[in-house]
């Protein structure tokens, strides 16, 4: 039953309200009060189970991933003119399913245009296509990373050289400890190979893209890089 809208002439005192049988101090009819309390109680009770459940489901969106470094082999394993594929663990605890392949080689002044710093003595490139995440393959003869799904092609620095991918192949931070190359967290690059917090495939970073696809709280680039 629709309740007539009388909010504008809301009475200030019991006398103004003209409610038959009202006690002194009452300005709201009992029916109106009970309607409001039915809605409120129902809302609170529903929210009481909905909100915690939703909070649990959305929790992982705001949980920060641990920074982990993983050894992939001694420095002499990696030449500077071609890539060596290595397997690393992205999500620990689930065996094979949490692993991924990275392509590793030594930084090469004649090939690389990424600014040199402490984290890229070795270049580690992901095997996920930046179009929609299919597994790319490095074909040595053509010096290209080739995606089998929708026609993405990358040059040997990981920059897009054809097809629909929206940005260069993501990379991983690397460092050398006691002659062993270690691979750390992932980061994304724009087309000038400037570093950004890691994005998912399909999310452009150039120009307005970095605002359309904001970085997520769950995974960030290392501070100061």
């Amino acid at each position, binding site marked *: 039953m629709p309740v007539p809208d009388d909010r504008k002439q809301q009475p200030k005192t019991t006398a103004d309200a003209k409610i038959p049988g009202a006690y002194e101090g009452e300005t709201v009819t009992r029916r109106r009060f009970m309607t409001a309390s039915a809605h409120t109680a129902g809302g609170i009770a529903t929210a009481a189970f909905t909100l915690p459940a939703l909070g649990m489901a959305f929790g992982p*969106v705001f949980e920060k991933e641990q920074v982990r470094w993983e050894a992939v082999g001694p420095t002499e394993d990696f030449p500077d003119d071609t890539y060596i594929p290595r397997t690393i663990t*992205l*999500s620990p605890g689930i065996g094979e399913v*949490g692993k991924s392949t990275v392509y590793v080689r030594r930084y090469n002044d004649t090939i690389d245009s990424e600014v040199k710093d402490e984290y890229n003595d070795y270049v580690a490139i992901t095997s996920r296509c930046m179009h929609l995440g*299919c597994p790319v393959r490095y074909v040595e003869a053509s010096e290209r990373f080739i995606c089998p799904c929708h026609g993405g092609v990358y040059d040997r620095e990981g920059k897009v050289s054809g097809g629909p991918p929206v940005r260069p192949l993501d990379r991983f931070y690397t460092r050398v400890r006691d002659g062993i190359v270690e691979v750390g967290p992932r980061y994304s690059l724009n087309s000038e190979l400037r570093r950004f917090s890691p994005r998912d495939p*399909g*999310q452009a970073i150039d120009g307005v893209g970095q605002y359309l696809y904001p970085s997520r709280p*769950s*995974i960030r680039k290392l501070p100061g890089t």
Partner: protein
Amino acid sequence: MAKLPTTSGTRPRGTRAETTEAPATAPQRNKLQETGVSTIDWLDERTSLSAGARWMMFRKIPKGTNWFYTLGSATMFAFLSQAVTGVFLAMYYDPSATRAYESVRFLTNEVFLGEFVRGMHKWGSTVMVILIFLHMARTFFFGAYKYPRELNWVIGVVLLILTLAMSFTGYLLPFDQRSYWATTVGVAINGTGPLVGPYLSDFLRAGPEFGATTLARFYAIHMLLLPGIIAAMIGAHLYLVARLGTTAPPWIRAESSPELREDSK
């Protein structure tokens, strides 16, 4: 509804029953029948369900209704088949990233009728997708989405989207190569939505990478959340069908009323 055949005084069935029965068993049969009638009467006295059943089952359907009108119920039947086979597949399935593939392999190769039931579920999904598209095509070509059935069309489109969401989430569960990569691409597609995309794909994966709980998340969505919503939506869809009536094919006209034909051209 079951009460109806028992009010058999005017029906040929009652007479046939009397003539074909051997005399010796007749009293026993009558007693059985009486028990059935009284059980249903007892239920009906307390629920008044027979009125609703009569309303649903004995509503009239217009002249010209043909085989194309069975596509909707066929889709619902495919859904029922999916629901039942799915429940029994779930008895053997283990939604953990390390054991899912092995449990499906066991279910397929070792369990009695395992491959058959899994095959029914797998191909049932294909059949259901085809049927829902055919049902939609019928509705479109017959103009059945027009007044007064607009809301039923909207519910139907929601059901179509939910069905595609079912096939997307179900895809991951066998946990073979195709499952994994299809899901990777599917989640990335979600992620290309501006602003909300990145958070949406984190939500679907339960984190920035495919992780320990991703599979369980898809499993829960596939077998609890979506089927519940679909069942509720089918209920609303059916209620509206019964309430508004099924359309006649557009070329059928009520012949006895030439004056009506004038104002609808």
